[in-house]
Protein backbone atom coordinates (compact mmCIF):
# COMPACT_ATOMS: atom_id res chain seq x y z
CA UNK A 1 0.00 0.00 0.00
CA UNK A 2 1.42 3.44 -0.92
CA UNK A 3 0.94 6.82 0.78
CA UNK A 4 -2.01 7.82 -1.35
CA UNK A 5 -3.92 4.63 -0.66
CA UNK A 6 -3.01 4.79 3.01
CA UNK A 7 -4.37 8.33 3.27
CA UNK A 8 -7.61 7.13 1.75
CA UNK A 9 -7.88 4.19 4.16
CA UNK A 10 -6.74 6.06 7.27
CA UNK A 11 -10.20 7.07 8.48
CA UNK A 12 -11.55 3.58 7.97
CA UNK A 13 -8.56 2.32 9.92
CA UNK A 14 -9.18 4.82 12.70
CA UNK A 15 -12.83 3.80 12.88
CA UNK A 16 -12.12 0.06 12.70
CA UNK A 17 -14.22 -0.12 9.56
CA UNK A 18 -11.62 -1.75 7.33
CA UNK A 19 -11.52 -5.35 6.21
CA UNK A 20 -8.70 -7.10 8.06
CA UNK A 21 -6.43 -7.32 5.01
CA UNK A 22 -6.65 -3.57 4.45
CA UNK A 23 -6.09 -2.84 8.15
CA UNK A 24 -2.96 -4.97 8.08
CA UNK A 25 -1.68 -3.20 4.98
CA UNK A 26 -2.26 0.21 6.60
CA UNK A 27 -0.48 -0.91 9.76
CA UNK A 28 2.46 -2.13 7.72
CA UNK A 29 2.71 1.10 5.77
CA UNK A 30 2.49 3.21 8.94
CA UNK A 31 5.39 1.32 10.43
CA UNK A 32 7.63 2.32 7.53
CA UNK A 33 6.39 5.84 6.70
CA UNK A 34 6.95 8.73 9.14
CA UNK A 35 4.81 11.11 7.11
CA UNK A 36 1.71 8.93 7.16
CA UNK A 37 2.43 8.14 10.79
CA UNK A 38 2.23 11.84 11.66
CA UNK A 39 -0.95 12.18 9.64
CA UNK A 40 -2.42 9.22 11.49
CA UNK A 41 -1.28 10.53 14.89
CA UNK A 42 -2.97 13.86 14.18
CA UNK A 43 -6.25 12.26 13.15
CA UNK A 44 -6.15 10.06 16.22
CA UNK A 45 -5.47 13.12 18.38
CA UNK A 46 -8.50 14.85 16.84
CA UNK A 47 -10.65 11.82 17.49
CA UNK A 48 -9.42 11.47 21.06
CA UNK A 49 -9.89 15.18 21.80
CA UNK A 50 -13.44 15.13 20.43
CA UNK A 51 -14.38 11.94 22.27
CA UNK A 52 -12.87 13.09 25.52
CA UNK A 53 -14.32 16.57 25.56
CA UNK A 54 -17.46 16.67 23.49
CA UNK A 55 -20.54 17.40 25.53
CA UNK A 56 -23.25 14.79 25.97
CA UNK A 57 -26.43 16.77 26.33
CA UNK A 58 -28.71 14.76 28.61
CA UNK A 59 -32.40 14.98 27.71
CA UNK A 60 -34.26 17.08 30.28
CA UNK A 61 -36.23 14.97 32.76
CA UNK A 62 -39.40 16.85 31.80
CA UNK A 63 -39.00 15.81 28.16
CA UNK A 64 -38.44 12.20 29.09
CA UNK A 65 -41.45 12.25 31.36
CA UNK A 66 -43.63 13.76 28.62
CA UNK A 67 -42.55 11.13 26.12
CA UNK A 68 -43.09 8.38 28.67
CA UNK A 69 -46.57 9.59 29.49
CA UNK A 70 -47.46 9.80 25.84
CA UNK A 71 -45.88 6.70 24.36
CA UNK A 72 -45.23 4.45 27.31
CA UNK A 73 -47.22 1.31 27.77
CA UNK A 74 -50.27 2.14 29.87
CA UNK A 75 -50.23 -0.89 32.13
CA UNK A 76 -48.43 0.95 34.90
CA UNK A 77 -44.88 0.17 33.85
CA UNK A 78 -44.32 3.77 32.81
CA UNK A 79 -42.94 4.86 36.15
CA UNK A 80 -40.41 2.05 36.10
CA UNK A 81 -39.41 2.94 32.55
CA UNK A 82 -38.84 6.55 33.46
CA UNK A 83 -36.52 5.41 36.19
CA UNK A 84 -34.68 3.17 33.78
CA UNK A 85 -34.16 6.01 31.31
CA UNK A 86 -32.83 8.33 33.96
CA UNK A 87 -30.19 5.73 34.57
CA UNK A 88 -29.29 5.65 30.93
CA UNK A 89 -29.17 9.41 30.71
CA UNK A 90 -27.07 9.63 33.85
CA UNK A 91 -24.53 7.30 32.36
CA UNK A 92 -24.61 9.69 29.43
CA UNK A 93 -24.11 6.79 27.11
CA UNK A 94 -27.26 5.78 25.29
CA UNK A 95 -24.87 4.57 22.60
CA UNK A 96 -24.06 1.59 24.76
CA UNK A 97 -27.47 -0.03 24.36
CA UNK A 98 -27.09 -3.68 23.65
CA UNK A 99 -29.13 -3.79 20.48
CA UNK A 100 -26.95 -1.21 18.85
CA UNK A 101 -23.83 -3.18 19.68
CA UNK A 102 -25.09 -6.38 18.15
CA UNK A 103 -26.20 -4.59 15.01
CA UNK A 104 -22.75 -3.06 14.80
CA UNK A 105 -21.34 -6.56 14.90
CA UNK A 106 -23.86 -7.59 12.27
CA UNK A 107 -22.51 -5.13 9.75
CA UNK A 108 -19.16 -6.82 10.04
CA UNK A 109 -20.79 -10.22 9.63
CA UNK A 110 -22.14 -9.12 6.28
CA UNK A 111 -18.60 -8.59 5.16
CA UNK A 112 -16.92 -11.66 6.56
CA UNK A 113 -19.96 -13.91 6.03
CA UNK A 114 -18.73 -16.11 8.83
CA UNK A 115 -20.62 -15.28 11.94
CA UNK A 116 -24.27 -15.13 10.94
CA UNK A 117 -24.95 -17.33 13.95
CA UNK A 118 -22.60 -17.27 16.85
CA UNK A 119 -20.48 -20.35 16.32
CA UNK A 120 -18.26 -22.45 18.52
CA UNK A 121 -15.21 -20.18 18.32
CA UNK A 122 -15.42 -16.41 18.33
CA UNK A 123 -12.77 -13.72 18.32
CA UNK A 124 -14.12 -10.46 19.69
CA UNK A 125 -12.37 -7.30 18.52
CA UNK A 126 -12.55 -4.33 20.89
CA UNK A 127 -11.07 -1.27 19.24
CA UNK A 128 -12.83 1.68 20.84
CA UNK A 129 -12.58 3.24 24.22
CA UNK A 130 -15.93 3.16 25.94
CA UNK A 131 -17.29 0.16 24.10
CA UNK A 132 -15.80 -2.33 26.54
CA UNK A 133 -18.64 -2.09 29.06
CA UNK A 134 -21.26 -3.15 26.55
CA UNK A 135 -18.96 -5.71 24.98
CA UNK A 136 -18.23 -7.44 28.28
CA UNK A 137 -21.88 -7.43 29.24
CA UNK A 138 -22.77 -8.91 25.86
CA UNK A 139 -20.14 -11.57 26.24
CA UNK A 140 -21.46 -12.53 29.65
CA UNK A 141 -24.99 -12.83 28.22
CA UNK A 142 -23.74 -14.81 25.30
CA UNK A 143 -21.83 -17.24 27.49
CA UNK A 144 -24.93 -17.64 29.61
CA UNK A 145 -26.84 -18.72 26.50
CA UNK A 146 -24.16 -20.93 24.97
CA UNK A 147 -21.58 -21.84 27.61
CA UNK A 148 -19.62 -24.07 25.20
CA UNK A 149 -18.36 -21.18 23.09
CA UNK A 150 -14.64 -20.48 23.01
CA UNK A 151 -14.04 -16.75 23.12
CA UNK A 152 -10.87 -14.77 22.57
CA UNK A 153 -11.05 -11.01 23.12
CA UNK A 154 -8.46 -8.96 21.23
CA UNK A 155 -8.04 -5.35 22.37
CA UNK A 156 -6.55 -2.96 19.85
CA UNK A 157 -6.33 0.82 19.30
CA UNK A 158 -8.35 2.79 21.90
CA UNK A 159 -9.95 -0.51 22.87
CA UNK A 160 -6.94 -1.37 25.05
CA UNK A 161 -7.98 1.09 27.78
CA UNK A 162 -10.07 -1.35 29.78
CA UNK A 163 -7.16 -3.76 30.19
CA UNK A 164 -5.00 -1.17 31.98
CA UNK A 165 -4.48 -1.40 35.73
CA UNK A 166 -7.00 0.67 37.63
CA UNK A 167 -9.30 1.26 34.62
CA UNK A 168 -12.92 1.81 35.61
CA UNK A 169 -16.18 1.88 33.66
CA UNK A 170 -18.62 4.81 33.60
CA UNK A 171 -20.19 3.70 36.88
CA UNK A 172 -16.84 3.50 38.64
CA UNK A 173 -16.51 -0.29 38.65
CA UNK A 174 -13.04 -1.72 38.07
CA UNK A 175 -12.85 -3.43 34.70
CA UNK A 176 -10.40 -5.84 36.18
CA UNK A 177 -13.07 -7.67 38.16
CA UNK A 178 -15.37 -8.05 35.14
CA UNK A 179 -12.40 -9.35 33.17
CA UNK A 180 -11.49 -11.80 35.92
CA UNK A 181 -15.06 -13.10 36.02
CA UNK A 182 -15.09 -13.71 32.26
CA UNK A 183 -11.64 -15.24 32.40
CA UNK A 184 -12.82 -17.71 35.00
CA UNK A 185 -15.42 -18.76 32.43
CA UNK A 186 -12.74 -19.43 29.84
CA UNK A 187 -12.57 -16.12 27.96
CA UNK A 188 -9.05 -15.28 26.87
CA UNK A 189 -7.94 -11.62 26.74
CA UNK A 190 -5.15 -10.55 24.38
CA UNK A 191 -3.79 -7.05 23.95
CA UNK A 192 -2.05 -5.50 20.92
CA UNK A 193 1.65 -4.74 21.47
CA UNK A 194 1.80 -2.29 18.54
CA UNK A 195 -0.96 -0.27 20.15
CA UNK A 196 0.88 -0.14 23.49
CA UNK A 197 3.97 1.21 21.76
CA UNK A 198 1.99 3.75 19.77
CA UNK A 199 -0.04 4.99 22.72
CA UNK A 200 3.10 4.98 24.88
CA UNK A 201 1.80 2.50 27.40
CA UNK A 202 4.20 0.33 29.34
CA UNK A 203 3.42 -3.39 29.38
CA UNK A 204 3.61 -3.17 33.17
CA UNK A 205 0.43 -1.09 33.11
CA UNK A 206 -1.52 -3.99 31.63
CA UNK A 207 -3.50 -6.14 34.06
CA UNK A 208 -1.99 -9.61 34.46
CA UNK A 209 -5.14 -11.31 33.17
CA UNK A 210 -4.35 -10.08 29.64
CA UNK A 211 -1.75 -11.65 27.35
CA UNK A 212 0.43 -9.48 25.15
CA UNK A 213 0.48 -10.29 21.40
CA UNK A 214 2.73 -8.47 18.87
CA UNK A 215 -0.09 -7.18 16.67
CA UNK A 216 -3.81 -7.28 17.48
CA UNK A 217 -4.84 -7.19 13.84
CA UNK A 218 -2.46 -9.98 12.89
CA UNK A 219 -3.69 -12.04 15.85
CA UNK A 220 -7.30 -11.67 14.74
CA UNK A 221 -6.34 -12.58 11.22
CA UNK A 222 -4.45 -15.65 12.44
CA UNK A 223 -7.34 -16.85 14.60
CA UNK A 224 -9.72 -16.43 11.68
CA UNK A 225 -7.71 -17.99 8.91
CA UNK A 226 -5.73 -20.62 10.78
CA UNK A 227 -7.97 -21.56 13.65
CA UNK A 228 -11.42 -21.05 12.15
CA UNK A 229 -12.62 -18.39 14.56
CA UNK A 230 -15.58 -16.22 13.63
CA UNK A 231 -15.02 -12.47 13.90
CA UNK A 232 -17.08 -10.03 15.90
CA UNK A 233 -16.30 -6.38 16.43
CA UNK A 234 -17.80 -4.92 19.58
Amino acid sequence: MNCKETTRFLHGYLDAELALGDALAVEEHLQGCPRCRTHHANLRAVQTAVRRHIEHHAAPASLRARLAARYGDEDGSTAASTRRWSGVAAAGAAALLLAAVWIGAGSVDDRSKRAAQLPAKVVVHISQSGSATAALRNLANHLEASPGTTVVVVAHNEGVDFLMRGARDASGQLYESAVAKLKSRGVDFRICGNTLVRLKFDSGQVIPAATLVPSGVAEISRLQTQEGYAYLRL
Partner: protein
Amino acid sequence: MGRPLPEQQKRKRFERLVLPHSGTAYNLAIWLVRNEAQAEEAVQEAYLRAFQYFDAFRGENARPWLLRIVRNTCYTLIARNRELGEPDVFDEGDHGEETVAPGAVVSFPANPETAAIESADRELVQRCVGALPAEFREVVILRELQECSYKEISAIAEIPIGTVMSRLARGRRLLEVALDRHVERKETGT
Protein backbone atom coordinates in the same frame (compact mmCIF):
# COMPACT_ATOMS: atom_id res chain seq x y z
CA MET B 1 -46.46 -9.11 10.04
CA GLY B 2 -48.15 -7.31 7.12
CA ARG B 3 -51.11 -5.90 9.02
CA PRO B 4 -50.92 -3.16 11.64
CA LEU B 5 -50.18 -4.26 15.18
CA PRO B 6 -52.94 -4.06 17.73
CA GLU B 7 -52.65 -0.81 19.69
CA GLN B 8 -51.54 -2.34 22.98
CA GLN B 9 -48.89 -4.48 21.31
CA LYS B 10 -47.64 -1.51 19.31
CA ARG B 11 -47.23 0.59 22.45
CA LYS B 12 -45.35 -2.16 24.23
CA ARG B 13 -42.98 -2.62 21.32
CA PHE B 14 -42.53 1.13 20.89
CA GLU B 15 -41.80 1.51 24.58
CA ARG B 16 -39.19 -1.23 24.44
CA LEU B 17 -37.49 -0.31 21.15
CA VAL B 18 -37.89 3.44 20.67
CA LEU B 19 -38.47 5.17 24.00
CA PRO B 20 -35.07 4.24 25.48
CA HIS B 21 -33.34 6.25 22.75
CA SER B 22 -34.74 9.63 23.80
CA GLY B 23 -31.36 10.64 25.24
CA THR B 24 -29.55 9.89 22.00
CA ALA B 25 -32.29 11.61 20.04
CA TYR B 26 -32.03 14.77 22.14
CA ASN B 27 -28.27 14.78 21.93
CA LEU B 28 -28.28 14.62 18.13
CA ALA B 29 -31.02 17.26 17.97
CA ILE B 30 -29.14 19.72 20.12
CA TRP B 31 -25.96 19.31 18.08
CA LEU B 32 -27.96 19.96 14.91
CA VAL B 33 -30.24 22.84 15.95
CA ARG B 34 -27.87 24.30 18.60
CA ASN B 35 -30.70 25.42 20.86
CA GLU B 36 -32.31 23.64 23.82
CA ALA B 37 -35.93 24.63 23.28
CA GLN B 38 -35.79 23.74 19.61
CA ALA B 39 -34.05 20.45 20.32
CA GLU B 40 -36.91 19.51 22.67
CA GLU B 41 -39.43 20.49 20.05
CA ALA B 42 -37.62 18.46 17.41
CA VAL B 43 -37.47 15.36 19.62
CA GLN B 44 -41.17 15.57 20.46
CA GLU B 45 -42.08 15.95 16.83
CA ALA B 46 -39.76 13.13 15.84
CA TYR B 47 -41.38 10.81 18.38
CA LEU B 48 -44.79 11.75 17.07
CA ARG B 49 -43.73 10.79 13.55
CA ALA B 50 -41.94 7.69 14.75
CA PHE B 51 -45.07 6.48 16.50
CA GLN B 52 -47.16 7.21 13.42
CA TYR B 53 -44.88 5.19 11.16
CA PHE B 54 -43.95 2.55 13.68
CA ASP B 55 -46.04 -0.14 11.95
CA ALA B 56 -43.63 0.08 9.03
CA PHE B 57 -40.57 -0.46 11.22
CA ARG B 58 -39.09 -3.95 11.16
CA GLY B 59 -36.25 -5.33 13.20
CA GLU B 60 -34.98 -4.82 16.70
CA ASN B 61 -32.55 -1.92 16.45
CA ALA B 62 -34.66 1.21 16.24
CA ARG B 63 -31.86 3.64 16.99
CA PRO B 64 -30.68 4.45 13.43
CA TRP B 65 -34.30 4.51 12.29
CA LEU B 66 -35.26 6.98 15.03
CA LEU B 67 -32.15 9.11 14.48
CA ARG B 68 -32.99 9.43 10.79
CA ILE B 69 -36.40 10.80 11.75
CA VAL B 70 -34.84 13.13 14.33
CA ARG B 71 -32.38 14.42 11.75
CA ASN B 72 -35.12 15.08 9.18
CA THR B 73 -37.26 16.78 11.79
CA CYS B 74 -34.37 19.03 12.83
CA TYR B 75 -33.70 20.18 9.27
CA THR B 76 -37.42 20.76 8.67
CA LEU B 77 -37.55 22.84 11.84
CA ILE B 78 -34.49 24.84 10.83
CA ALA B 79 -35.95 25.55 7.38
CA ARG B 80 -39.30 26.54 8.88
CA ASN B 81 -37.70 28.93 11.36
CA ARG B 82 -35.73 30.47 8.54
CA GLU B 83 -38.91 31.13 6.59
CA LEU B 84 -40.50 32.67 9.66
CA GLY B 85 -37.48 34.93 9.96
CA GLU B 86 -36.60 33.69 13.43
CA PRO B 87 -33.04 34.19 14.55
CA ASP B 88 -30.83 31.71 12.81
CA VAL B 89 -29.17 29.53 15.41
CA PHE B 90 -27.96 27.23 12.69
CA ASP B 91 -24.37 28.11 12.07
CA GLU B 92 -23.37 27.39 8.48
CA GLY B 93 -19.77 28.44 8.85
CA ASP B 94 -17.84 29.50 5.80
CA HIS B 95 -16.83 26.13 4.40
CA GLY B 96 -20.08 24.99 2.77
CA GLU B 97 -19.86 21.78 0.81
CA GLU B 98 -20.75 23.45 -2.46
CA THR B 99 -17.23 24.80 -2.56
CA VAL B 100 -15.68 21.38 -1.95
CA ALA B 101 -16.25 18.41 -4.21
CA PRO B 102 -16.60 15.18 -2.20
CA GLY B 103 -13.21 13.56 -1.81
CA ALA B 104 -11.39 16.59 -3.14
CA VAL B 105 -7.91 17.10 -1.81
CA VAL B 106 -7.80 20.39 0.01
CA SER B 107 -4.49 21.93 0.84
CA PHE B 108 -4.13 23.64 4.16
CA PRO B 109 -1.30 26.02 4.84
CA ALA B 110 -0.82 24.90 8.42
CA ASN B 111 1.17 21.85 9.41
CA PRO B 112 -0.71 20.80 12.53
CA GLU B 113 1.16 19.36 15.46
CA THR B 114 -0.07 16.30 17.29
CA ALA B 115 0.87 17.68 20.69
CA ALA B 116 -1.03 20.91 20.02
CA ILE B 117 -4.17 18.99 19.11
CA GLU B 118 -3.80 16.75 22.14
CA SER B 119 -3.73 19.77 24.42
CA ALA B 120 -7.15 20.99 23.25
CA ASP B 121 -9.53 21.56 26.13
CA ARG B 122 -13.24 21.03 26.60
CA GLU B 123 -14.31 24.53 25.69
CA LEU B 124 -12.23 24.59 22.51
CA VAL B 125 -13.61 21.26 21.32
CA GLN B 126 -17.23 22.41 21.80
CA ARG B 127 -16.49 25.59 19.89
CA CYS B 128 -14.69 23.93 16.98
CA VAL B 129 -17.23 21.13 16.56
CA GLY B 130 -20.07 23.65 16.87
CA ALA B 131 -18.50 25.78 14.13
CA LEU B 132 -18.30 22.91 11.63
CA PRO B 133 -20.68 23.22 8.69
CA ALA B 134 -23.76 21.07 9.35
CA GLU B 135 -23.01 18.27 6.89
CA PHE B 136 -19.61 17.65 8.50
CA ARG B 137 -20.79 18.28 12.05
CA GLU B 138 -23.52 15.66 11.83
CA VAL B 139 -21.22 12.85 10.67
CA VAL B 140 -18.65 13.75 13.34
CA ILE B 141 -21.34 13.73 16.04
CA LEU B 142 -22.86 10.47 14.81
CA ARG B 143 -19.46 8.84 14.67
CA GLU B 144 -17.66 10.16 17.76
CA LEU B 145 -20.51 10.88 20.11
CA GLN B 146 -23.12 8.30 19.14
CA GLU B 147 -20.57 5.68 18.03
CA CYS B 148 -22.51 4.81 14.89
CA SER B 149 -20.94 2.59 12.23
CA TYR B 150 -20.45 3.97 8.71
CA LYS B 151 -23.38 1.84 7.64
CA GLU B 152 -25.62 3.34 10.31
CA ILE B 153 -24.51 6.89 9.49
CA SER B 154 -25.24 6.20 5.84
CA ALA B 155 -28.78 5.10 6.77
CA ILE B 156 -29.38 7.99 9.18
CA ALA B 157 -28.10 10.80 6.95
CA GLU B 158 -29.35 9.10 3.78
CA ILE B 159 -26.02 9.38 1.99
CA PRO B 160 -23.82 6.68 0.41
CA ILE B 161 -21.03 5.18 2.55
CA GLY B 162 -18.44 6.84 0.29
CA THR B 163 -19.93 10.22 1.18
CA VAL B 164 -19.93 9.31 4.88
CA MET B 165 -16.20 8.70 4.58
CA SER B 166 -15.39 11.84 2.61
CA ARG B 167 -17.44 14.04 4.96
CA LEU B 168 -15.87 12.47 8.00
CA ALA B 169 -12.42 12.98 6.47
CA ARG B 170 -13.17 16.60 5.65
CA GLY B 171 -14.74 17.24 9.06
CA ARG B 172 -11.75 15.80 10.89
CA ARG B 173 -9.34 17.72 8.72
CA LEU B 174 -11.16 20.98 9.52
CA LEU B 175 -11.06 20.09 13.21
CA GLU B 176 -7.39 19.21 13.01
CA VAL B 177 -6.53 22.63 11.65
CA ALA B 178 -8.95 24.49 13.93
CA LEU B 179 -7.77 22.77 17.12
CA ASP B 180 -4.13 23.27 16.20
CA ARG B 181 -4.60 26.92 15.30
CA HIS B 182 -6.51 27.84 18.46
CA VAL B 183 -3.96 26.25 20.71
CA GLU B 184 -1.25 28.20 18.97
CA ARG B 185 -3.15 31.45 19.43
CA LYS B 186 -3.64 30.77 23.09
CA GLU B 187 0.05 30.14 23.53
CA THR B 188 1.13 33.32 21.80
CA GLY B 189 -1.63 35.27 23.56
CA THR B 190 -3.15 36.76 20.41
